[in-house]
């Protein structure tokens, strides 16, 4: 019974996730894509819960759904509505074909790899306690095994912040001694 329920949830979440992902890549208007991504994130969070990653799920919703997406939406709003007139055309003809072929190839390969061991080592799952994935455990790990990773993550964020400042800052009029625009082009 419980299994059935879990399966249902999984199916719903998985499809939502997949459809929203497809939406992200296929919407003509970046605004819709962004919204689709939110859906994608949410459904992923559900899946994470199913996998016992409570803290991750929360983080997903907060960090992504909160911070990142807001940023996206701001930027989109700032740049105004610039919908691509023809999202799928343009570029060399082989680009589309090649892209799809490559994607399909990678997908098939991974699936084959998975299939080659489905029912094998992949099927057996470790028994986990209630505390699995709880904030305490995660936090403990962050303070013990992955202390450094934790710190580094913050540094990365800091670097990106500086970068954002540098890039986003309003460019002043070019001084006369500057090299002319496009010089290095």
């Amino acid at each position, binding site marked *: 019974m419980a299994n059935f329920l879990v399966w249902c949830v999984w199916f719903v979440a998985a499809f939502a996730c997949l459809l929203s992902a497809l939406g992200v890549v296929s919407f003509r208007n970046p605004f819709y894509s962004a919204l689709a991504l939110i859906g994608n994130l949410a459904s992923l969070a559900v899946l994470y819960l199913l996998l016992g990653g409570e803290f991750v799920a929360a983080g997903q919703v907060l960090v992504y759904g909160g911070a990142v997406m807001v940023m996206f939406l701001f930027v989109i709003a700032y740049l105004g509505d610039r919908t691509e007139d023809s999202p799928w055309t343009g*570029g060399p003809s082989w*680009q589309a074909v*090649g*892209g799809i072929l*490559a994607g399909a*190839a990678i997908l098939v*390969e991974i699936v084959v*790899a998975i299939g080659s061991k489905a029912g094998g080592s992949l099927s057996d799952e470790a028994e986990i306690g209630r505390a699995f994935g709880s904030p305490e455990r995660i936090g403990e790990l962050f303070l013990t095994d992955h202390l450094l990773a934790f710190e580094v993550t913050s540094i990365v964020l800091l670097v990106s912040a500086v970068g954002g400042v540098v890039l986003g800052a309003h460019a002043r009029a070019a001084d006369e001694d500057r090299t002319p625009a496009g010089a290095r082009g």
Partner: protein
Amino acid sequence: MNAAAWVCLLLPLGSAAAITLAGTRISRRAAGYLSTLTTMGSFIAAAVAFFALLGDQPEERAHATTSWTWLSAGSFSAGFTLLTDPLSVMMMLIVAGVGSLIVAYSVGYMEGEDEERRFFAYMSLFVFSMLLLVQSGNLLLLLAGWGMVGLSSYLLIGYYQERASAIRAAKKAFIMNAFGDATMALALFLLIEHTGRLDYAGVFANAPTGTVATLVALGLLGGAVAKSAQIPLHTWLPDAMEGPTPVSALIHAATMVTAGVYLIVRTHPLFENADFVLDLAAGLGAATLLMAGLIALVQTDIKRVIAYSTMSQIGYMFVGAAIGAYANGMFHLLTHAFFKALLFMAAGLVIHALTGEQDIRRMGGIGELMPWTRTAFLVGSLALVGIFPFAGFFSKDSILAATLDHGWYGIVLFVVGLAGTFLTGLYAFRLYFIVFTGHQSRFAREHHHSHHGREGPFSMMWTVLTLAVLSIVGGWIQFAPFWHPITDWLEPVAAPLVEPTEAQEWLASGLALALGLAGIAVAWLAYSRRTLRVPHAPRALVKKLYWDELYDWIWYRPADTLARWLGRAFERPVIAGSLDVLTRGFGLGSRGLGLAQNGLVRSYALALGGGLAVLTVVFLSVR
């Protein structure tokens, strides 16, 4: 006497070097005298050596002196060795003696030429080379001298640098002689392989036999034929007349061209193991003497006529040397040096007097203008034809006599030789009568300019007259039936293989004399009395039997065409073109990659994805 030998060899070299280095710092005259004196010095040194040899017992009259190792590699080594023995001394005397006379003559002849110094430097260089040739104590050094005389003859033939014909003739002479050098070199390689050494004694001691001997002898014969202008390598000699007349006298009459005979005599132990080659040499000599005589009949250039007669006379010497009558060959070489030099120098006087004209058809009746010259020329011609008691009579007839002691082949040679004598008389006196007798041609009257009433400066005249005397008495040294000092002198070096009987001697002399006189008579009728109508000269003879054309077709043109073809069809398209093809190919590749780098970030990402896909599928499949 070794010292004498060295002095004899090095004096001319010294003068050549001195004149070259001094450049314009010495006068032209000084150069001439320097060269003359050094040559005379060599003659004196040679004489000293000669008398020193006389002092020794006949069998130990060979003295080799090595100053330093000239060339060595591994076990092989060849020293700078001078050999003083009867044969070389005889040659030294001829070369230095006749040489000094001719050099003295040219002091007058070349007067007024600018670059006179160059001429005398070359002359001295030639004398040095010739002496090196005859004095060398091993085959390698002999070859060296061989090449050097070729070089100096090239330089002297091409003395008139502006004249294209002269340069062409010079090149021709050098290249043909280079061919001879090459064959000789091959013979030497063979000797090195089989005996490991090149000094005369060592080589002769274990002279090869059988095929090897034949090949060696052939190689040497090639050199001899080329140098002595015998069939088939004779065509350079007539053209060589482009050089100044003294040069013709010295190189192309008296000394260098006879080197072939010297070579055969010198290396007779090698030849004697190869009868076939000896017969071949004799045959070539005979053929040459006949052919040259015929061609000489129709030539119109005074010097060319004499040149052809030189060829034919050397033919006699070849016959002599080839049948083993070494002494007779050398004897004829000696007398021939005298009278042929005389003829050339007399002709030189004529040419000189006619301001360089050489065509006999424009001459005539010169005799009255230049009586001394006429006499000298007459003497020379008589000696050439071999009329008693002139020098040629003794030497030539002794060769003819020797042939009779050589079996049936000898008989053939004898007949050919006799025919030769008749031709000799004919062409020699055709020349004489046309040039000197009859009434003067307009050209002669107009152009003849006498040196203050004399026919030539004293420096020229005295040499000519000396030679005239020598051409008369020179033959009396040896009269085979009665006394034969030369044969005895050469005995230790080259013992004769043929011993003609007295009867044969008389027979030969008689017939030769008769035919010679007959030839003269015909010439008299035809060219002096004009009673005999001269038949129109056959084209083939005028064209010298097409030898030049032959060589043009078998050697020059093929080389030239091949070279052009290689340059056009291989060097440019293949050697140079291959690189162009390569660069073009890479250029295409580069351009293609440039297109792939299309500036679209999506394509870049796609390339990454594609790479990943390929990598993964490979990994999965080979895992």
